């Protein structure tokens, strides 16, 4: 049973290798990759439900008991994110079938996407610090290759920056691991938590915590997001949707893990720094989102705002706020993929990504227009949709925790999100129709279907928030009580 826990990472890895050999057979690549992603999604749902009944699943590789071996730990938080990841990946792969083009599909897109997903789910599931580093690198190397795939001028230019920033942050990650190993002498996350609690987090460990904060902020785009809008503007839209939905979220996941499980003894210092960074991120993202006339830039800055929003829940650090952040994290992964895909369709249909060159598209493409409107109100957090629940809980947590500055900034940033997207909706879909019905580009089912599915998912997640509330509460419980995690990993059976 526990052996199933490795499959969300290993299955994409093996299938990715298999797909390398199937390079000329694009049809087979599509069939196999879609089947794998769907199967892994169902499997992660199964594991998630299993965790609800039986508690945290752990798997020790090679039978070496932790802290000596590497173990995988599946709790509600990591499996919820894994399931969401595969849901999005399945739908993005559907979208890529109809938009990627033969020349790219021939050049290892699907193998690289599978390797990326192996890295992402490995990062979610691992219980070992160095293994986390390796999974990050698996994910990042695949993303480097995906961002330049096609080799256009803008891709090369942005990829250089993206790769340099991430390589630098990987070295800082290594340095942080070296310091932490030098101080505590262990690499297992649960064991680290025990050792840090024993030492009571002296200043040296707080310093190391801040180095980790720096590393994961670079990955998540918290304050250090300057690389993000350019990098997410370069690759093909299906790939950009995967990046927007997954890559920053891995950094956010790592921040949540580290600052609730390891470095939670000095919240006045570390969590205040996170709060300040989150505020600056939201302000900067809001300015970026309303400043540009480029569709992809606006959407990329919306990713930045969401990162600030989710991390403000961590900064407040009480039950309601963390719960809100988890709801919002899941919502944001789905709805960012949704938004990127819609923007991709819009850019394909209008042939431009400049706002001022599009107008009145709702007459030609009513379904697309209303789906975009759904995305807008969902992101802004209008009640029946999925963004609402997370925002309410974070706001409630902020009131409980007396964090009124954060409360104000999170709510004002929602207005900026709404404004930036309504601006797109107003200029692109309303107004005078400039494309005649005879010369309009036909909208293909393969493009709009994935968008509609994601739209249905955000609607369902909003209406059925009750159904995942048990999972989210269990995740919050594990995050706020590290002892639950430690017991599951270190003190199994006997003690």
């Amino acid at each position: 049973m526990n052996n199933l826990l490795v499959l969300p990472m290993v299955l994409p890895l093996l299938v990715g290798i298999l797909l390398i050999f199937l390079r000329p057979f694009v049809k087979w690549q599509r069939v196999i990759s879609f089947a794998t992603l769907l199967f892994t999604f169902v499997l992660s749902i199964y594991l998630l439900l299993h965790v609800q009944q039986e508690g945290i699943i752990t798997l020790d590789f090679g039978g070496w008991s932790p802290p000596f071996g590497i173990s995988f730990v599946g709790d509600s938080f990591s499996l919820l994110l894994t399931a969401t990841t595969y849901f999005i990946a399945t739908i993005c792969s559907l979208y890529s079938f109809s938009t990627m083009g033969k020349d790219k599909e021939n050049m290892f897109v699907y193998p690289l996407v599978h390797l990326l997903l192996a890295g992402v789910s490995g990062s979610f599931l691992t219980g070992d610090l160095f293994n986390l580093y390796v999974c990050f690198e698996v994910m990042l190397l695949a993303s480097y290759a995906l961002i330049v795939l096609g080799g256009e001028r803008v891709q090369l230019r942005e990829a250089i920056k993206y790769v340099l920033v991430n390589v630098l942050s990987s070295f800082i990650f290594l340095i942080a691991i070296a310091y932490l190993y030098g101080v505590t002498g262990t690499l297992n996350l649960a064991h680290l938590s025990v050792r840090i609690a024993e030492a009571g987090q002296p200043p040296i460990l707080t310093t190391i915590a801040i180095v980790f904060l720096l590393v994961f902020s670079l990955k998540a785009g918290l304050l250090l997001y300057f690389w993000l809008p350019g990098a997410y503007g370069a690759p093909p839209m299906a790939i950009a949707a995967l990046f927007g939905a997954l890559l920053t979220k891995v950094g956010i996941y790592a921040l949540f893990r580290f600052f609730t499980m390891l470095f939670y003894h000095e919240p006045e210092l570390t969590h205040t720094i996170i709060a300040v960074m989150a505020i600056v991120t939201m302000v900067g993202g809001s300015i970026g989102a309303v400043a540009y006339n480029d569709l992809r830039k606006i959407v990329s800055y919306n990713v930045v705002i969401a990162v600030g929003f989710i991390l403000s829940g961590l900064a407040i650090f009480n039950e309601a706020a963390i719960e809100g952040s988890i709801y919002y994290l899941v919502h944001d992964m789905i709805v960012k993929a949704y938004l990127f895909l819609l923007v991709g369709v819009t850019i394909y249909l209008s042939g431009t990504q400049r706002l001022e060159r599009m107008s009145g598209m709702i007459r030609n493409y009513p379904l697309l227009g209303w789906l975009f409107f759904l995305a807008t109100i969902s992101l802004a957090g209008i009640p029946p949709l999925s963004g609402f629940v997370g925002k309410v809980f974070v706001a409630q947590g902020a009131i409980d925790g007396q964090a009124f500055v954060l409360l104000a900034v999170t709510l004002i940033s929602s207005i900026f999100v709404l404004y930036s997207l309504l601006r797109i909706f107003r200029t692109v879909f309303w107004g005078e129709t400039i494309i005649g019905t005879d010369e309009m580009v036909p909208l293909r089912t393969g493009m709009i279907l994935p968008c509609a599915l994601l739209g249905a998912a955000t609607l369902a997640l909003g209406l059925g928030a009750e159904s995942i509330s048990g999972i989210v509460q269990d995740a919050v419980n594990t995050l706020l009580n590290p002892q639950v995690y430690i017991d599951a990993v270190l003190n199994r059976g006997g003690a």
Partner: protein
Amino acid sequence: MEILMFIVIGVLFTIGIYLLLARSLLRVIVSLMILSHGAHLLLLTMAGLNAEAPPLEHMADGGYTDPLPQALILTAIVISFGITAFLVVLGYRTYKVHNTDDLEKLRGSADE
């Protein structure tokens, strides 16, 4: 011994960061190599540099040196080798397409 190593690593990081801020792409790539050396040496040093037997079973008289950081460094070396190879090729392609290795000229967006 550790103090000396820390000073050397500090010098490596200084050089690395100085080169990282250079305008030429090749210098930046070299700087990442130097930074990777710094990070790997730091991993080795932080685990302690006591002169004991290499971590091989048949050499067991007294203690061993810590084998774990050596495994970590080996992994990190391979990863940074892969990334460096990719980065060199990426730099070459960028040079071919953009006809410049000056990072100042590679900035900004297309619509400015």
